[in-house]
């Protein structure tokens, strides 16, 4: 919302620069976005009167004399919208128009005449098209006839201005109209001068002679929703372009002129904060009724859209049909046009929640609905109606009748604030006199009630309803930064994280020590990405109102998002990547949404960075598996890995991660066709683990295990088995056959080929035996070798190869 400081100064004088004002308003709690400065960019353009206008024969051009008061200059123009007596902007010889073009005296050879300057359109003055009426947009810009000639145009048009851009806060209508801001400047002045704020300068002129009644009967059905409604007939008006003074004000209020009647309603809204609506009186049939819409009723609003109404919509209707969406937008049928002779002027107070609902249910937010939903002044509509009627008569002629009024506005209730409560909430004692002074600055009426103060907030302050609201006002007036600070006190207990959070931090630390970089990716993704990643999940959760396809589905796995960043990094020349993410994944069961924390790990490329030493360590299945095993070891768990299938992983290079018989995740090589669809030519490996599932397993506290003080007894064994025998079974046989002193079983070779048969493989292990109380001797292992040989044969149908 842009507030013109130029118009603000005309309303209440002040000394602040725009930046200072912006800062003061911020400290008062109005949210300032920025200060916007607008300055004219033409030079030496003055007002001039058109005289002796004549068409040049056999050409499309006109010749005229431009009277600047000092000189009369011959000017040639092609514009067709001029009349003798018009005051227009003249770019003198040796001038500059908007955009920087230089204007000199110019000879028109076709007509053999010289033009001493150029008449300007709005574009050549750099005016904002959106703020101009249709007429102002045509041809040469024309000033009112009584504009003095010879004046620089920048003095005549309110172009040079500085605007304060305010954000709209939900409870503050005052940031939305000029007087709302002007009142805060008065409060700033009152504070500075240590006096009560005096808002009388903003009083609206309501002196108007009324004649006769408004014949159309008024029926307010929705009494609770429309506590005040006033409808007035203004008859015999001439609808046309507004006078220049009003258009100038609208320009500063940044409203586009339409016609005088509509302009006046817009002016009152933007300047005084009271939305009004003008109907064509003669198009209303038999009565004016304020009621809730019937479900399915239709209304074509001013913007030309036919709308289907619902039970939340409050409407103004005549005997037969809705004619306006109350507090939001008028209907097209009863719109005021150039043909309108009689106007029905509505001025009302609607309940904020009612308008908020109505506007939001149709997704139609207008200046009027914004004001109404934030809360307008319930005691102001009749005054605004009289003021607006007076303006209409000035601009469009006619006479105003007495209004038909429905008035069920309850007198505003006072709010009491306890002095002791102020102290308790603020943590500082503010003496009663100072509290009263704060209320004086804001112009509140109040009564001293001993330990408390009873406050009657002004009717335009709709944000003060309960005690804490007044405490905020005390704070606002004292200044948020004038109060001291104090650290918390009280009984201290040790502060803790949740168990899950603690686990996640430990996991993050471990994974980064293991050489993985943490990624934080988006959790709302494009459904195409899920498909591209070949996830094949069916229970995907989707938002029902996305604004873009890119943020539409909740990720069912971390795989698509990690592939996405792999694609990005690969395309940008990053040769190797090893990342993890600990993030939420989502599933929808048809009724419920489940979210859980998952660990995703994705690698491509090489663990050792490119080097001249011919060393490399490409990420592969076993590297990733080893990493996962180390991770599990670190957190105190010991899962198993078994063959499994996952849609997007290599069918024979994928394992399920099993903890206490339950699946907690998977690991594998990403299928080449998936990798390729992300533009990656290297092999990609991926693992995903459900943190919730591993957290539900009890993780035992680590306990001391004695460390042997004697040297280990080491031996190697080689076992030949069928290729289909999984390694873990061989390892199990070794462990099961060994005495308790066997502490380390390390696989160091897998061999296939001669002299083994085609279906055989040889697994070689290095074993280490430790005893707590002695140096072990080789002979002690004889029985182990025997048992092992037997078991290998029996359980694995293999054979032990002796050293």
């Amino acid at each position, binding site marked *: 919302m842009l507030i013109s400081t130029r118009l603000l100064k005309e309303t209440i004088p002040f000394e602040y620069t725009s930046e200072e004002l912006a800062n003061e308003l911020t400290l008062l709690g109005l949210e300032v976005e920025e200060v916007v400065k607008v300055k004219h960019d033409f030079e030496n353009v003055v007002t001039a009167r058109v005289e002796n206008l004549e068409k040049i024969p056999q050409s499309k051009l006109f010749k005229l004399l431009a009277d600047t008061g000092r000189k009369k200059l011959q000017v040639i123009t092609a514009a067709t919208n001029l009349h003798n007596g018009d005051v227009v902007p003249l770019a003198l010889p040796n001038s500059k128009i908007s955009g920087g073009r230089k204007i000199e005296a110019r000879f028109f050879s076709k007509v053999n005449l010289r033009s001493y300057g150029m008449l300007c359109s709005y574009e050549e003055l750099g005016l904002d098209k959106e703020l101009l009426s249709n007429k102002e947009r045509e041809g040469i810009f024309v000033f009112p006839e009584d504009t003095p000639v010879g004046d620089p145009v920048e003095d005549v048009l309110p172009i040079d201005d500085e605007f304060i851009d305010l954000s709209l806060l939900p409870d503050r209508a005052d940031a939305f109209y000029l007087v709302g801001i002007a009142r805060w400047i008065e409060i700033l002045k009152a504070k500075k001068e240590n006096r009560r704020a005096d808002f009388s300068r903003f009083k609206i002129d309501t002196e108007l002679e009324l004649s006769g009644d408004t014949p159309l009967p008024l029926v307010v059905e929705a009494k609770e929703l429309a506590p005040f409604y006033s409808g007035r007939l203004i008859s015999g008006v001439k609808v046309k372009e507004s006078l220049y003074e009003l258009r100038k004000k609208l320009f500063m209020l940044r409203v586009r002129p339409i016609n005088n009647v509509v302009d006046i309603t817009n002016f009152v809204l933007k300047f005084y904060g009271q939305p009004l609506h003008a109907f064509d009186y003669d198009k209303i049939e038999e009565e004016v009724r304020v009621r809730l819409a019937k479900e399915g009723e239709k209304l074509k609003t001013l913007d030309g859209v036919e709308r289907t109404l619902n039970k939340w919509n409050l409407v103004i209707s005549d005997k037969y049909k809705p004619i306006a969406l109350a507090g939001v937008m008028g209907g097209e049928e009863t719109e005021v046009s150039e043909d309108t002779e009689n106007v029905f002027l509505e001025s009302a107070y609607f309940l904020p929640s009612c308008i908020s609902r109505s506007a939001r249910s149709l997704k139609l937010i207008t200046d009027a609905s914004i004001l109404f939903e934030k809360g307008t002044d319930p005691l102001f509509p009749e005054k605004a109606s009289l003021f607006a009627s007076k303006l209409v008569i000035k601009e469009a002629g006619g006479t105003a009748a007495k209004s038909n009024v429905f008035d069920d506005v309850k007198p505003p209730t006072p709010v009491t604030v306890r002095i002791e409560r102020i102290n308790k909430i603020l943590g500082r004692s503010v003496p009663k006199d100072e509290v009263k002074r704060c209320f004086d600055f804001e112009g509140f009426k109040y009564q001293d009630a001993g330990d408390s103060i009873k406050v009657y907030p002004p009717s335009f302050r709709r944000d003060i309803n309960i005690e804490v609201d007044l405490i905020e006002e005390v704070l606002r007036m004292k200044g948020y930064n004038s109060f001291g600070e104090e*650290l*918390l006190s009280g009984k201290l207990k040790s502060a803790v994280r949740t168990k*899950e959070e603690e686990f996640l931090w430990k996991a993050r630390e471990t994974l980064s020590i293991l050489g993985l970089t943490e990624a934080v990716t988006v959790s709302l993704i494009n459904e195409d990405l899920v498909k591209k990643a070949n996830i094949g999940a069916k229970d995907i959760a989707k938002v029902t109102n996305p604004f873009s396809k890119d943020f539409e589905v909740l990720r069912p796995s971390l795989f698509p998002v990690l592939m996405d*960043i792999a694609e990005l990094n690969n395309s940008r020349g990053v040769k190797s990547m090893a990342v993890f993410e600990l993030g939420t994944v989502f599933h929808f069961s048809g009724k419920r949404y489940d*979210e859980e924390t998952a660990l995703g790990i994705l690698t491509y490329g090489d663990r050792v960075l490119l080097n001249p030493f011919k060393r490399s360590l490409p990420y592969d299945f076993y590297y990733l598996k080893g990493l996962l095993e180390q991770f599990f070891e670190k957190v105190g768990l010991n899962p198993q890995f078994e063959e499994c299938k996952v849609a997007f992983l290599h069918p024979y290079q994928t394992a399920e991660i099993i903890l206490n018989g339950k699946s907690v995740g998977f690991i594998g090589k990403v299928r080449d066709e998936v990798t390729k669809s992300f533009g990656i030519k290297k092999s990609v490996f991926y693992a995903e683990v459900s943190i919730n599932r591993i957290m539900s397993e009890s993780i035992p506290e680590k306990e001391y295990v004695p460390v042997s003080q004697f040297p280990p007894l080491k031996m190697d064994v080689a076992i030949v088995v069928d290729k289909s025998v999984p390694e873990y079974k061989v390892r199990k046989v070794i462990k099961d056959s060994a005495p308790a002193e066997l502490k380390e079983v390390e696989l160091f070779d897998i061999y296939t080929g001669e002299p083994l048969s085609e279906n055989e493989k040889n697994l070689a292990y290095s074993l280490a035996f430790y005893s707590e109380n002695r140096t072990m001797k080789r002979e002690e292992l004889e029985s182990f070798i025997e048992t092992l040989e037997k078991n290998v044969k029996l359980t694995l149908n293999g054979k032990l190869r002796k050293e």
Partner: protein
Amino acid sequence: MKDKISQLKEEFYEKVKGKTLSELKDLEKYFLGRKGKVAELFKEIKSIPKEQRKSFGEKINELKSLMESVLRESIKEQENIEREKKLLREKIDVTVPGLKLQQGGLHILTKTMLEVEKIFLSMGFDIMTGPEVENEYYNFEALNIPEFHPARDMQDTFYLLNEFLLRTQTSPIQVRTMEKYKPPIRIIAIGRCYRKDPPDAHHFPIFHQVEGLVVDKNVSFANLKGTLSEFTRRMFGESVKVRFNPSYFPFVEPGAETSINFGGWLEMGGSGMVHPNVLKNAGIDPEEYQGFAFGWGIERIAMVRHNIPDIRFFYRNDLRFLEQFK
């Protein structure tokens, strides 16, 4: 015999000059070996008269130890020379870049969260969490934002089916905490939030917030300021200036916006005294208890702290960006 000894001595000096290590080893054998020249001399002792044997024996022994010591010295010297040569052969170019492994590290957002947590843990705040999929009650109604309230515009919401939604703020955790625990309450919660903000340099539909809530009998606005100022100083340095100004959030009153200054005021986040309606909704008597709450953006904190110009960088996960903060 005497001559033989001096001849041998001369021969020895002649031969030992300028010899390499292996030649010295050969000489050692030649002179001092079991069948070497000195051994030969000893054999010859038998052939001389008995009374001279002793003195010749001593002389040969003298020569032997002289040879031994000269050879030892020469060998040592030659060994040093050989070792030096070997080391020289092993010379490497120490300016060649070292062998590097892919290094791990945390994302700048989680690093920031960790730092925030540490500061609040040290001030006695527990860390809470809550779900990202919320319902209308916790995300809005319990926080004094009824349906159709204009405040909902400030938080354009992603909806799911069955009246579920993606939380637009971490404030629902306030409500959940107050329902579950009795005052005194002193918590923060860090989490992911969602709003329908199209991405640009300062907006992203996904972001993280740190939420704080303190409820006790005498928790005041001065405590709110004290806590947030302390946090700000520890996060951004002692010299940072902190400012509070009035603002509006439906679930607090009085409400405040906090800005910090490194040369211009930057808004950091909202806060305020917990609104009586919010306390009532959670079953806490606002006459007996009061409290403050705040909600700041993690991305915002990280952007200000590390001078990161665009919020989208966090979610792009370009390794060249991430590595700057590992």
